[in-house]
């Protein structure tokens, strides 16, 4: 059962809900986003087009990050989800150079979201910081893991559940009758930059 995503660019209207829902669920520190969205524009006026590209870890079948990781901290489980063992990672940052999708992150400390506020953290940040430290930590690589905690609880990844336009789908790529497999086949789903040979598990449906 290989976990995969489909993101329907025809439905996505660029609201950043996935980015913030992910941040809230994964308690990511300041300026770290596991589900970053990038705005884009193409064409010449008046035939211009705009489309937001939501990104997340592609959980590639041939992950570059796993290849370059010197310590073996980067692992891939039977579902294809790539994780980092925070006790092994030495924080060299090689994976950050190797990932073509910018989905590996590193942060040295918990910077408060309220730099003009008092030094002690508010109750939510205190909670979030501890959750972050339990799962990730500082100085080591951190990344999206398709919300495995939620998935193991029978829920969908946070970004999938938040999306107001229902543009995100999560499921089993190995099952040809799963919703995402059908969508990929029928709607001509494509991967980003396949020339890197990473074979991502995230497919996009065309914007138009």
């Amino acid at each position, binding site marked *: 059962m290989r976990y995969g995503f489909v993101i329907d660019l025809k439905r996505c209207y660029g609201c950043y809900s996935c980015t913030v829902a992910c941040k809230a669920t994964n308690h990511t520190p300041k300026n770290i986003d596991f589900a970053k969205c990038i705005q884009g*524009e193409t064409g010449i006026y008046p035939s211009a087009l705009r489309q937001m590209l939501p990104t997340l870890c592609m959980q590639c079948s041939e992950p570059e990050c796993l290849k370059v990781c010197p310590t073996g901290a980067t692992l891939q489980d039977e579902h294809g989800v790539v994780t980092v063992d925070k006790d092994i990672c030495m924080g060299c940052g090689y994976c950050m150079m190797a990932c073509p999708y910018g989905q590996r992150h590193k942060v040295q400390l918990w910077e408060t979201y309220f730099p003009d506020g008092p030094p002690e953290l508010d*109750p*939510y940040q*205190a909670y979030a910081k*501890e959750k972050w430290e339990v799962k990730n930590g500082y100085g080591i690589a951190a990344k999206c893991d398709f919300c495995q905690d939620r998935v193991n609880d029978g829920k969908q990844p946070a970004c999938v*559940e*938040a999306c*107001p336009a229902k543009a995100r789908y999560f499921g089993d790529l190995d099952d040809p009758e799963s919703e995402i497999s059908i969508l990929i086949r029928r709607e001509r789903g494509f991967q980003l930059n396949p020339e890197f040979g990473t074979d991502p598990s995230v497919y996009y449906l065309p914007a138009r």
Partner: protein
Amino acid sequence: MKAQPGNIKEDVWIPTACGGCYAQCGIKVRRVNGTIVEMDGNPDSPAGSGRICAKGSAQLMTLYDPHRLNYPVKRTNPEKGVGVDPKWERISWEEALDIIVTKLKAVYEKDPRGVYFQATTVQTSEIRFAVVAFMRAFGFKNYWVSGGGLWCGNGAHFMNGIMHAAWSIIPDFNYNNYTLYFGCSKGHGAGHAALQTAQQVADARARGMKAVVFDPYLSTQASKGHEWVPIRVGTDGAAALGMINVLLNELNIYDAHYLKHKTNAVYLIQPDGYNKRDAATNKPLVWDPEDGTAKTFDDPSIKDFALEGSFEVQGTTCTPAFQLFKEHVKKEYPLDKVSKITSVPEKTLRRIAKEFGEHARIGSTITIDGKVLPLRPSAAIFFRGSQGHVNSGWTCLSIDLLNHIVGAADVPGGSMGHGPPVCQGHPDTGKPNTVPFACPDGLMEVKGWVYDHKPYPLRKPSAPQRLDLQDMFPCSIYNAFTICSPDWEKYLEAFKIDYRPSIMINFGSNSVMTMGNAEEVTENFLKKFEFIFSFNIYHNEFTEAVADVVLPDASFLERYTPCVTFPSTFCHPTGIDQWVWEIRQPVVEQIGERQDFNAVMLEIADRLGLKEKYLEAINKIIPIRYGGEMAEKYKLTPDRIQTWEDICDNVLRDRLGDDKGLEELKKTGLVKWPFKVEEMYWRWFVPVRVPIYFEYFLDAGKQLKEVAESFGMPEIADYNFYKPLAQWNPCPSHTMDNPEFDLWAFCWRPSFHTQSSTQNNPWLDEISLSDPWVYLVQINEETGKRKGIADKDMIWIENPVGIKIKGQARLVQGVHDEHVCIAGCHGHWAKGIPIAERKGVFFDDLIICDINYTDSLTQGSDTCVKVKIYKCEEGE
């Protein structure tokens, strides 16, 4: 107790309604050991269906923001003004209430009329009955809601109310195939049931629905749309009238049956422009061509209605309104003229009109729930962008007339009043009942409107008693041109207003930033108040400039609000299977000394000795706002009501049933009941007509002129606006001759901010800083190059009266080449919101609030302005 992962004593989900904007989506909030740690959509609520947007997820950061106000303060610096340091001193609630009650009492005894309240659209559900009740009990009439006038409201709500009994208008996403979007984002933005419409529009698009988006900006909706039609700002009405001309006079496409039965298109009009009325009953007459005679419009013997022709009735030659309208658009709005006004090519307008007309499939039907209904899968919708101009009211009507011409109004596939206006009430109580009814002339009157102004019948112009003279105007909600201009005192004297502003009660409205030019608003309007107290969540530009006492307001996560999704016309999702009545309930104890302003106002009313009057006023407002008389046992009386929760409980039981009080509803946060097809597609179930010919504007204009002349100020309006047929009038920006000011500036709203209130949220700040457009000034790349401006240059944007704002340029392809496109409402300077400070551009400063920039019909503000742009010098 800290919420530590290994020490969980409590982990609960509380259902409530989000208050991050005014979409009122149902959410579930997770509380662990007393701390809110997660916000999710509530799948149980059809307002959102389990989804949550960026603003919603981010709200817990606003809850715990250390810059939030947690205790009352008073101003110790007597000086007021933009940028002045108020020198706050912390005080206790007792002292704050003491000061406030003393001031209010003095004013109440002397003259209560000079009080003004200001509120924000974000808290519409919170103020809708309680604050208005205080106003009635105390005895003042002045109010302003942020968003109103400038940002939305005057034209849009007025016309939508007349034509659809609703606050705004969306396509029926269930069956629509083709929608023209004018100046609105429905399904791609925030506010009014935003998340539900986001799903609906995505589903519709997947089904093949095409959106043709008229917009000076390649907005989100234009990007997702089938076609983007760049149009000059403020000219939407002209485009619509041009297309109506094509439909009526070139293509002969119109829904005769609808026009005959559901509009006043068949009413006979005399040469003087008035309805020809029956001598006995005074009812408007129509011509029955089968019987060859005039009859009253509701005569049961009518076999058919004449839409065109010339008929002798009692010695007068009369013409059906439809013919007048048809000739009017042919004469006044030929496509070559419209193309010049709008910058949209003639061919494009003609093609789109044809597509619109053909997609309407006039004559087709569909069977839903066993009922045969007209199927009209075409729609034309509009909102804030279209109506924010001098031609506010007429622009809205012109666009909506496209719908009525093809019969696509509140039927499957067509344009729908949004939120759904027609409710027969909860099965247990029959409340709220908001089924419109016909006035004696057969035209639709609404029930359950959001604020004081009913869209129809119009107010009869008479000597004004309000400080903004609003009650003199027939159609106005509120306006800015009187109060924000240096002429305010002149107006007050001329119109013999025998009192002056005394106290302002401000409920979270950042009016310094959201009415117009900040200096003008502050100096001309806000500083005229002797005492201002404000319930707020931050120290913002308003509190720092002019507030005397600031009280820390509870956020939506810390308060009870009993009626969130009703009146349905404001924010209830449209076109779904179920009605949902949501409540808001606290998820955490109020942090610090924060209090729900409704609880405080109840206390203040009590201390002023007005408690009984206040509760009595609520008893009178509930039936109007929420459709249906109050049961005796639930009417509010001083002995039964001690707290705000008591009020909530009684209102809920009265509206929804004995078993649906506050305690019961806290469990699920909502009550649902099924939508009936007569409620959803109500147009052919409710025996009302709507006007395509606004005969009553003639009298309204005459009466307004009389009143204005009697005070020696006939120039208070341009009476040409008070004509019966739709018209397009230019803004000053369209007729300005000065070649130096060669670009139009306008603003748009991002979906991940709520006006001026969310920029201090660090999560929203993060995405804003990484967004390439929201905090910058977007200019067409060719235009920028022509002016020697490079991407990321700091530039000045200056309006014709010398006001200038600064911003960083972003050269793009997605802006009409004659325009400068700025996201509002950013560019904060308040010290109390350091994260928001200096991010983005403060567009509103460019707005000119005077009579020339005001709609004479609805007194809405013009939000476009001609500008010149140039690079900043070094060090500026």
